[in-house]
């Protein structure tokens, strides 16, 4: 990983009595693509606006490229920004929009126009250059906004939900495009989103936020495989939760019986929440094999999701049903159908443990 490009230290933002961000600290590396991910109202936009200087933090410091920018106005910082609304100037053509940041820099006219050309080529809009924003599709408008933000070669690119106004298909396509563009230009980028799929597919690292604090920072793999908190576990992907209490070394008891876990360090009688992803639960062809944490249950429903199926199973005596993912082949082999019975196991090493009040 490169050098630290942006450092946020102990940043707090209050709106009157309401604390929108609480003691946020964070580092972003040079050339990195970071996503702020979290539910609506968790403070993502607030943090982004503080980085841009559009809404200055109540306390805390921000350093960009070694320069303390904590209290600088936006015009003295170095960033390009794309808003959810794109904020394209309606009365200027595509090329005038893109050139907006270039013109007054005393650049020669032909330099400006070749730079505009370059940018429009980059976002594949050369043939739309003389159109007005209202004559473009949403996806095209989004790309114009991106080109305009990149025109001045800013050190930092800020994107606030840049894809959320688009329909699903365009969105998936643009994800790829933005990601590739970012890699090619190696511009340090922060994107705000509440769409976890977007964050997982695009980000080098994800900052998961909730109620104004950072819950976890990590690569998509880390966040998915090892959610640091119950909130992250629940927010990212699908997760089964089981309320239990530690009953011995590496063992928990819950309503439906006992479960082996991989952690033996937790004191007895402590209440925990166990979590396991649907794809980590194994469906078994025969019972009594040497798999740990075995149980059997009744199939409540089967949902086809293309390459795999999602089965809802109610193990005997359990508080809540389990969601289990299996390949279509396996499901056929086991003849899984609603109303039938199936054997399953929960591999101990796949079970995540969250302690209450910690």
């Amino acid at each position, binding site marked *: 990983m490169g050098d630290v490009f942006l450092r946020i230290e102990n940043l707090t933002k209050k709106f009157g009595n309401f604390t929108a961000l609480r003691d946020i600290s964070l580092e972003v590396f040079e050339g990195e693509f970071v996503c702020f991910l979290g539910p609506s109202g968790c403070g993502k936009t607030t943090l982004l606006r503080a980085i*841009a200087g559009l809404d200055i933090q109540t306390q*805390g410091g921000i*350093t960009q490229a070694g320069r303390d920018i904590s209290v600088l106005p936006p015009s003295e910082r170095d960033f390009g*920004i794309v808003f959810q609304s794109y904020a394209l100037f309606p009365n200027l053509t595509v090329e005038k929009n893109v050139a907006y940041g270039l013109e007054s820099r005393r650049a020669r006219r032909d330099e400006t126009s070749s730079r505009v050309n370059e940018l429009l080529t980059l976002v594949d809009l050369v043939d739309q250059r003389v159109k007005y*924003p209202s004559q473009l599709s949403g996806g095209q408008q989004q790309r114009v906004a991106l080109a305009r933000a990149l025109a001045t070669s800013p050190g930092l690119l800020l994107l606030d939900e840049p894809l959320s106004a688009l329909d699903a298909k365009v969105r998936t396509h643009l994800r790829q495009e933005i990601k590739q563009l970012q890699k090619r230009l190696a511009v340090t980028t922060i994107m705000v989103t509440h769409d976890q799929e977007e964050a997982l597919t695009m980000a080098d690292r994800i900052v998961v936020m909730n109620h104004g604090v950072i819950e976890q920072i990590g690569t998509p793999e880390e966040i998915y495989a090892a959610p640091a908190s119950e909130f992250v576990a629940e927010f990212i992907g699908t997760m089964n939760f089981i309320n239990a209490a530690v009953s011995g070394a590496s063992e928990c008891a819950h309503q439906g019986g006992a479960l082996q876990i991989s952690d033996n360090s937790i004191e007895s009688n402590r209440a925990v929440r166990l979590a396991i992803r649907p794809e980590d639960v194994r469906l078994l062809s025969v019972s009594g094999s040497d798999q740990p944490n075995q149980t059997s249950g009744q199939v409540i429903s089967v949902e086809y999701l293309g390459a795999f199926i999602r089965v809802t199973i109610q193990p005997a005596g359990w508080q809540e049903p389990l969601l289990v993912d299996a390949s279509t082949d396996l499901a056929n082999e086991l003849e899984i159908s609603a109303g039938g019975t199936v054997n399953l196991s929960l591999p101990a090493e796949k079970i995540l443990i969250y302690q209450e009040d910690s």
Partner: protein
Amino acid sequence: MATTAVQVGKGSGVLKSKSSSDDRVMRLFILVIGGYLVIALALPLYAMFSKSVFNSDGSFVGLSNYFSYFQTPALVYSIKNSLFVGIITTLITVTIAFILAYGFTRSRMRGKPLFKTIAMIPILVPSLLPGIALIYLFGRQGVINWALFGNEIYGPIGIIISEVFFTLPHALIIIITGLSIADARLYEAATALRASRIRIFFTVTLPGVRYGLISAAFVVFTLAVTDFGAPKVIGGDFNVLATDIYKQVIGQQNFEMGAVVSVVLLIPAALAFFVDRLVQKKQVALLSARAVALEPKPDRRFDNIMLTYAIIVSIFILGILGMCQFAALFKFFPYNLSLGLTNYQFDLMDGGGWNSYFNSIEMASYTAIFGTIIVFYGAYLVEKGKGFGVIRGAVQFLAMLPMAVPGMVLGLAYIFFFNAPSNPLNVLYHTMAILVISTITHFYTVSHLTATTALKQMDAQFESVAASLKQPFYRTFLRVTVPVCTPAILDISIYLFVNAMTTVSAVVFLYSPHTTLASVAVLNMDDAGDIAPAAAMGMMIFYTAAGVKVLHYLLSRGIESRTQAWRISVAN
């Protein structure tokens, strides 16, 4: 470097953004605009209030002026008269306007654009004009004075008819807006339930338009109570507050008593203003509820009734106007009916002659140009400025205030403030500048609201994007804000021009022999008994205002077609 950031962060105080040069320039400008409003509005009003608690020798007398006011029955009687005129006018105007607006929005009658245009005509004439027409129609030698059954047109009847004419377009605009936000789905539901037209009217239409009606009522009431033109021309011995101020100041040179009456007149106007603001907010809430526009269904009988009604209202308006034009063109109506232009020889009469007409055009042009710049830029700074919250709030408040200040009160306040020997600004007294300043201030609020609405419709992030691109704010202002807001800017300038042409109330205290105005000339010629020339001058004002309106229409059309390519996006 990183360590300094930590130190900043660890500090317990609240961080403040270092202001950019843009921020500083914008703050300077908002101070300029704020300073303008303080000088042109706040200080004169203060001067007037303080005048009301001093006597003519300049010593403080507390409320004794007020006591003597309330002990003078003739003066107190005017309060009753003003309220009477206000209430009756409100009832009549709102009823007439509501039925007309109902026809425009709920029927498929023919000729809607024509009738709407006719209904807007009264905005283009001074409020003195209907009174003059009424003298010709119903005066002692009036053409149809039998229609009054022996009643006298001079007095409440004349005033009320004039005020109805004068306030009709204002009420109509508000009520049409109120009726247009109706949700078609409600009507479909009601029709599906087989509710009758009458039932739908009382259960859907009336509740939907209630805020519009209340708002219209308050606007009409304020206009009627504070108007000076109509009672001056046709009031006879029937005194109202606005004419009392004039008589106290111009007739008796009793400035202190004029100030007291002004304070009294401020009360109903200010009250109406605040209620109206309250109601407007509620109406906006109704509007945002994404209604489906209503498309009225044809109904032969109903459409014809509405058409007939619109024709009757139009005859009333055109009749008043036509009467003035006839009177102006005949040598001596109704005795000598030979045509001629003698009544247009204004230079032979009191009132400033043709000069006053050209002065008016000059004054209206300056008002439109400088007023639009000040108002639009002020609204922009209030809307888009950063920091400086208290000052921006104060400017916003001052911008809303003129709506609550009757023209007579403003004019008198200007005398007190600008004519004070100790005030260095008294060089402005009796100049064209003070007429322009008072007129801009008088009509500030509506212009400010128009500008604010247009600015609010723009994407709030334009300025953020421009800052990130390191563009100075004035560049974005000139290249984006102004072009996008051009329709609103044109509306403001035309509004200011037309009102500057027709206004009498504030300027009647402020003109000088070199700066007589057309509207004031109408008043003075009428006063001197030259009624036909007064009518002629009034019609000159009308033709000028109408001409400018047509020009505005053509200009807007031109701009619309030139900017059509990108305007679509602004709408959605």
